[in-house]
């Protein structure tokens, strides 16, 4: 066996164990820009360079000779670095995040990286129409019925949707359309 593991952890360039531990504790209170070490309005190329620089510092591979506790601390920082970059590199997420920061969200506030499929489905439903839960649901069901060719079931569900959302023009129009077909 080599002496690499036993000869004692050697601190990396500019990083001593104390600093790593402190950072691992602190990382929850830093915003994504602070984690990457980039200014708030940084251009995407600057963000990328900051991500690369932070990765050189905190990449788990570069610290694999440290003891398990220290490795855990580095891994924790590294995961936050990738999270920060994953949010900020995408313009839409970045905009949302910037807005949150501007509204005074705590620095450690985190964003989810993904809008789940279920969430996305709901958003699509919202975009399509419907403000109340039940309105949306019955409208969705009606669409299912239509796809199956079950017009009377669709009419019933659209009627329900209209009951919950009397002012919804889309529901009304769809109901009229289905009723016309039924006759």
């Amino acid at each position, binding site marked *: 066996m*080599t002496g690499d593991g036993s000869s004692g952890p050697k601190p990396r360039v500019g990083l001593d164990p104390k600093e790593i531990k402190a950072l691992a504790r602190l990382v929850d209170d830093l915003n994504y820009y602070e984690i990457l070490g980039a200014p708030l309005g940084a251009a995407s190329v600057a963000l990328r360079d900051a991500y*690369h620089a932070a990765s050189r510092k905190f990449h788990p*591979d570069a610290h694999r000779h440290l003891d398990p506790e220290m490795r855990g601390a580095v891994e924790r920082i590294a995961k936050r670095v990738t999270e920060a970059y994953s949010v900020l590199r995408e313009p839409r997420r970045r905009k949302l995040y910037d807005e949150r920061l501007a509204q005074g969200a705590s620095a450690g506030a985190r964003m989810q990286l993904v809008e789940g499929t*279920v969430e996305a489905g709901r958003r699509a439903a919202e975009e399509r129409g419907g403000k109340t*839960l039940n309105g949306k649901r019955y409208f*969705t069901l009606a669409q*299912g019925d239509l796809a199956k060719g079950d017009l009377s079931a669709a009419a019933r569900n659209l009627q329900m949707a209209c009951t919950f959302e009397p002012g919804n023009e889309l529901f009304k129009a769809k109901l009229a359309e289905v009723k016309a077909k039924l006759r």
Partner: protein
Amino acid sequence: MAEVAIGIDLGTSNSCVALARGGKVEVLPNAYGESITASVVAFAEDGSITVGNAAKANIIHDPKHTIYSSKRLIGRYFFSEEVKKAKAICSYEIVEGPNHSVRIKMRSEEFSLPEISAMILREMKSIAEARLGQTVTKAVITVPAYFNDNQRQATKDAGRIAGLEVLRILNEPTAAALSYGFGKGLNQRVAIYDLGGGTFDISVLEIGKDVFEVLSTCGDTFLGGDDLDDRLIDLLADEFVAKEGINLRNDPYALEKLKVAAESAKKGLSIEDEVEVRIPDVIVGPDGRGRSVERRITTEEYSALVMDLVMRTFKVCDEALQQANIVARDLAGVILVGGPTRLPLIRNAVKEYFQREPRTDVNPDEVVALGAAIHAASLLSPQQEAYLLDVTPLSLKIGVASGLAETVIDRNTPVPIEQTRGFTTFQDFQESVNIRVYQGESRQAAENELLGQFHFSGFKKARRGEVRIDVTFEINSDGIVNVTARDPATGQQASTQITLSSGLSEAEIQKIMQRDRTAQVVPSAVTAGMVAPGNKGAAGPLPQTPSIATPPAPPVRSAPLVPPPPLPSPPIAARTAPVLPPPAQVDPSEDLEVLPDDLPALPDLEPPGEPAQAEADASAELIVMDEAAPLPGGDGPADFEITGGFSQLQPGAEPAKKGLEIAGLDGSPDERVPVDTPSEDLFDRNSRDLSPPSEDISIDLEVDPEKKGK
């Protein structure tokens, strides 16, 4: 002697081992002096095992006991499409093992796929040890970038069984990029076009001096050089039926000869414009007369046969460029990886697609192993010279109601990464939850790969909505997934490294390592007469080897055609160890994260005074909470609105109904489980899914729209 770590490219058709040290990186050739070794394992009648080119030569003599292309099966479920396809075309016997796993039956023994891969890895390890004259225990092993977690875990297990400490499971295209750009101080974007024996990967990387950042990776684990060969086999077999009225596919020996011929023809066409396939006496006709295959193939004809497959790779490239948010002209270089990319028809197509000449200064057979070796050395060295920033190739998902899967970590997200989602219980006094984790891009849970499922209990019992459960998904630098569930109130924690249901449990790995069949691999050095002079390879005459003649000179390699010498007995003592029966059904107590199929449904808790709600049989339902949302009050009407909607809709429906639906979903009909389906039907309908009917309904996370989307 200084410790070394090798890089192993464990390929579908061929494997390669390399070492980087002293500022130099080189391939370690096998005993025949060849840089690549066939990923083929042959089982002789006397119990000895041969790996490599000698084993490959055995295919036409003993197709039933020669295993090739096993990488196509590793980490897959028995019922998967790929396994079905392999069963149809492979001459060796593929059987089902415990937990829907795949086993290969060889004479009286059954082998798991990691065990077979371990035999190949053991051979690569021996090759390195013979060249270096020292023991090697550490390695970086590469896998296709598009491998899912199950396949990565199984490959890692294979390394362990082979006696290797696997420092890293590295993506093949990333390894190739490292080999291309290491130490050059480049600042450019490159694409790696990797068409192997069984898989296709494309990765787009941004190289920033010593940082290798993968921008995107896409792939097709069902597309490779083997598929090109299959096209030619079909052509030859069909023509043979037309001419002789005999279907060669029905004869395992004839089929293997066709395979060998098709592969040689492909190699020939990489050099020549035209080859002649000649298989004398491929089969004996009913009249006792031998029939032959003789067929001239031109590049044009071959192109027509396979062009649609080549075009399929470009659809994948489109996707990768789009995911990286760039266009082809943003790239500074295109690097070709994999034997089939030697075909001029592929080079030309790649050139046309990327509008640039692919790099020709990279050896497509060796570049991955070289990159793996560079990374292995770098992981061993205290001084870091390159930083790999890789991505997860597939989206990580969690199963929710109605057979859908919700994405938690998107594909092409950099790793390591961690995401936490808050959930709450769905039923009053619910005792446990069952969490199913998937990888894939489909909204339908069953169309994704099930990585595993686990059970979380021990949180406080309370009314629905009053319990908070945090589920944390982590993908580490190996691309391996960990999932933890935690009750922040009690600190109760259940953690699992997701273990595939078709994979090996720790106990099974231990058993396999004990019986150590991989130790019975006859090192090729012995076969080649390099190490043990007593075991000289007795090259007998070859009966009817198919030959391919390219007009000027056939590219024949003599060594691989030598049949494995009949060794009196394997030279390794492990032979005396009793052969254990195939691993028995996994004991559930040892293997917490895998729920055996016969496990009863989670107990229904009937909340006092509310029998109507218990009928919904949602014993393990969770509600997704917003990351920042406070815990909801116990009787929030919103929760009831969603979950009860279904019974509101059809008040007269039978109580046995299982599928709950998600409010506000995009409602095309196939997205919902029909509400009036009894559970048995539900199971049939989802037969691709692993889970017994009870589980299909027991997981069911519910999204609460009132609390999300703020």
